[in-house]
C-alpha cells in the first residue's frame, strides 16, 4: 500500500469537500438523513432513494458524497426515535430501542443520545480507518463468501438471538425459531411459490420488517403507557457531549472491537446494519462485567450496537466500489445512481480512480463531525419535548406515529393491522417471559439470509451437504460458532455447577 499516495489523496479530498458547495451538500445529506432516519417508517434506504432524485443532474462524485452523508445521518437518526419514543426509526436501531428507552425512562435520555452520537461518530471513524487500510484484504475475503458461508453466518445470528434473552436461553431459542419461520412467510424467492399465505394476497408479500418491529417495540409501549396515569412524565438528567465522551473512553476497547465486527459485516455483501447492530449488542453483553444491566438501560449495550452499526457504513462501500456488489440497500441505490451517471465500479475501478475512495471516506468523516453537531441539538430538542409531555399524552402521539410509520413504509393499510398484531404479540410474549429481540433477529435472518442461502448452497452442491463442512471459510465460521457456544452456554453452565457444589459443601 502506498501510504504517501493515500495521505495526499485524503488531504486533497478534504480540501475539495471543505468548499462551501461541498459542505452544503454534506450538511443537507446529514440533516435529511437524520430527519428521515428519526421518522418511524421512513428508513435510511427510503431517505437515500428520495434524495437520489435531486442528484440526477449533479456530478456523480458529488452525488455520492451527498448520498453517503445521507446514509450516515439516517443510520444515526434511527437511534433518536428509538431512544426517545421506543420506536426504532430503522431496523438497525432496534437494540438501541431496548437500552436507550430504558435509560430515557430513568431520566437519562440525554446521556443515551450523547452516547449514541459520540459512539456513532467514533464507530464511523474507526470503520473509515479500516476501510482505507484493509479494503483490498477484505474484498478478497468477501469473494470467498459463498451461500455455504452465508448460511453459517445466519446460524451464528441464531445463537446471538438466543443470547439476547434475559436468563432463559431456551425461551430465546424458541422466540428466534418462531421469528425464522415468520421470516419464511411470503413468496419463496427461489421457487416463487407462496408460503404460509393461507390464501391471502397480503401475506404473499411476506411479513414486512418495519411494521413488525414498530409493533413489537412501539405499540407494546403504547399499550402499557396509554392508560397508565401513575407516571406523570419521565425525569431528565442533563449531560454534555464531554460527559458522553468520558463514558465512551471508559468502554473504548469495546468500541474498537465492535467497530471491527461492524466493518467486517459491512464488507460481507447482503448482511448489512440490520444484523451488525445485534452482533455488536451481543458482543457487548457477552463481554460485559454487568450483563444483568442489559435490557434495563445498559451503556455497554448502547455502545456495542451503535458502534457496530456505524462501522458497518464504511464497510459497505468496500464491495460496492471494488466489486460492484452492494453491501446493503442504501449502497445498492448508490450503485444505481453511479450507473445512471455512466460510472461503472468494478475490480479495476479504484486502480484508475483512487480519488473516489478518498472523497467518499472524507465525506463520511466530515459528515460524522456534522452529525455530532446536528444530532446533538436535534436530539436535545426531542428529549425536552419528550420529558415535558405527560406519559399518557406521549403514548397517544406515539400510537399515531406507530400507525403512520407502519403505513408509510409500503402505503398499505394492512401493515398497520400487522403492526398492531405484533404489538399484542409483544405484550403476550412479555407476560409469558419470552424476549422479543430474538424474534426480531429471527425475522431478519429467516427469509433473506438463512432460507435462501441454505437452499442456494444445496442447489449449488447438487443436494450435497458436504461443502457446508469442507470449505475453508465455512470451517473457520463453524469453529467460531463452536467457540461462541462453548463460552456462552457450556462454560457458564460448568462454572455454575461448580459454584453449586461448593455451596452444598459449605452448607
Amino acid at each position, binding site marked *: 500500500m502506498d501510504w504517501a499516495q493515500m495521505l495526499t489523496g485524503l488531504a486533497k479530498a478534504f480540501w475539495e469537500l471543505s468548499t462551501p458547495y461541498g459542505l452544503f451538500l454534506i450538511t443537507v445529506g446529514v440533516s435529511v438523513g437524520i430527519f428521515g432516519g428519526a421518522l418511524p417508517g421512513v428508513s435510511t434506504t427510503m431517505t437515500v432513494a428520495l434524495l437520489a432524485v435531486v442528484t440526477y443532474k449533479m456530478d456523480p462524485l458529488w452525488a455520492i458524497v451527498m448520498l453517503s452523508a445521507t446514509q450516515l445521518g439516517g443510520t444515526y437518526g434511527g437511534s433518536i426515535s428509538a431512544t426517545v419514543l421506543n420506536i426504532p426509526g430503522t431496523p438497525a436501531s432496534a437494540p438501541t430501542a431496548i437500552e436507550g428507552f430504558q435509560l430515557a425512562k430513568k431520566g437519562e435520555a440525554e446521556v443515551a443520545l450523547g452516547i449514541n452520537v459520540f459512539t456513532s461518530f467514533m464507530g464511523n471513524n474507526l470503520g473509515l480507518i479500516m476501510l482505507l487500510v484493509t479494503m483490498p484484504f477484505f474484498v478478497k475475503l468477501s469473494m470467498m463468501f459463498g451461500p455455504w458461508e452465508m448460511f453459517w453466518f445466519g446460524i451464528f445470528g441464531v445463537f446471538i438471538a438466543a443470547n439476547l434473552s434475559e436468563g432463559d436461553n431456551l425461551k430465546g431459542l424458541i422466540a428466534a425459531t*418462531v421469528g425464522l419461520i415468520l421470516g419464511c412467510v411470503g413468496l419463496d424467492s427461489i421457487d416463487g411459490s407462496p*408460503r404460509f399465505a393461507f390464501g391471502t394476497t397480503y401475506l404473499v408479500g411476506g411479513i414486512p420488517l418495519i411494521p413488525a418491529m414498530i409493533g413489537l417495540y412501539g405499540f407494546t409501549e403504547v399499550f402499557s403507557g396509554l392508560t397508565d396515569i401513575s407516571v406523570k412524565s419521565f425525569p431528565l438528567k442533563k449531560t454534555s457531549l464531554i460527559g458522553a465522551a468520558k463514558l465512551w473512553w471508559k468502554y473504548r476497547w469495546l468500541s474498537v472491537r465492535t467497530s471491527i465486527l461492524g466493518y467486517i459485516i459491512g464488507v460481507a455483501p447482503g448482511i448489512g446494519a440490520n444484523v451488525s447492530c445485534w452482533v455488536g449488542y451481543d458482543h457487548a453483553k457477552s463481554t460485559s462485567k454487568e450483563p444483568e444491566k442489559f435490557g434495563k438501560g445498559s451503556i455497554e449495550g448502547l455502545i456495542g450496537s451503535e458502534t457496530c452499526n456505524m462501522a458497518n457504513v464504511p464497510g459497505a462501500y468496500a464491495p460496492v466500489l471494488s466489486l460492484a456488489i452492494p453491501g446493503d440497500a442504501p449502497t445498492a441505490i448508490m450503485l444505481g445512481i453511479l450507473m445512471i451517471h455512466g460510472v461503472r465500479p468494478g475490480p479495476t475501478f479504484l486502480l484508475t480512480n483512487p480519488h473516489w475512495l478518498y472523497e467518499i471516506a472524507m465525506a463520511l468523516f466530515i459528515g460524522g463531525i456534522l452529525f455530532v453537531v446536528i444530532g446533538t441539538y436535534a436530539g436535545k430538542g426531542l428529549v425536552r419535548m419528550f420529558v415535558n409531555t405527560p406519559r399518557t399524552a406521549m403514548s397517544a402521539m406515539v400510537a399515531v406515529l406507530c400507525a403512520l410509520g407502519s403505513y408509510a413504509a409500503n402505503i398499505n393499510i394492512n401493515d398497520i393491522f400487522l403492526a*398492531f398484531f405484533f*404489538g399484542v404479540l409483544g405484550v403476550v410474549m412479555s407476560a409469558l417471559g419470552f424476549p422479543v429481540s430474538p424474534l426480531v433477529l429471527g425475522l431478519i435472518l429467516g427469509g433473506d439470509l438463512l432460507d435462501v442461502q441454505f437452499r442456494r448452497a444445496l442447489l449449488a452442491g447438487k443436494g450435497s451437504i458436504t461443502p457446508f463442512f469442507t470449505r475453508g471459510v465455512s470451517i473457520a465460521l463453524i469453529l467460531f460458532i463452536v467457540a461462541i457456544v462453548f463460552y456462552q452456554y457450556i462454560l457458564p453452565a460448568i462454572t455454575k455447577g461448580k459454584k453449586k457444589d461448593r455451596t452444598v459443601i459449605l452448607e
Partner: protein
Amino acid sequence: MSPHDRDFLTACLVVILAIFVFGACLMMPMRGDLIESPAIFPGFMSVVLFTFGVAYALRSLSRGGRIKPGQLFRSVVLVFTSEQNRLTLLGIFFPAIYVFVAIPLIGFYISSALFMTLMFYAYVKRWRRWLFLPVSVGVTVGLYLIFNRLFMLQIW
C-alpha cells in the same frame, strides 16, 4: 396458576404451533427434487421448534408444571378482572378501535386527530382542556406536511 404451570401450557402451545407449521409445509407445492422444495427450510425449522417445545415442556414438568382445567379458567377470568390487566386491556382496546375502525372508515389524518383528542380528554390531567384540540390538530398537520408534502407519500 404457578409460573411452571404457565410454562407447561405455553410449551404445549409451542408444540402445537410446530405441528401446525410442519403440516402447512407438507401442503406446499413440490417441484423437482426435495432440495428445491420451498418447504425444506420452514419444515426443518418446525422440527427444531418441536424439539425446543418438547424440551420446554419436559423442563416445566420436572419443575412441577401441570395443566389444571379449573385453575386455567380462573386465570383467564383474572386476566380480565385484575386492576393492572384491566388498564393494559383498555390500553389495547382504544388503539384497536383507532386502527381497525377509525382509520379504514374516515382516513388516517382525521382519525388520528380524533384519537389523540379523545385520549387527551380521557387520560391527560396536566394540560388545560382547551389545549387538547389544538395540540392534536397541530401534530396531525405537522405529520401531514412532513409525510405528504416533504416526503411526497400518499397517505390519507
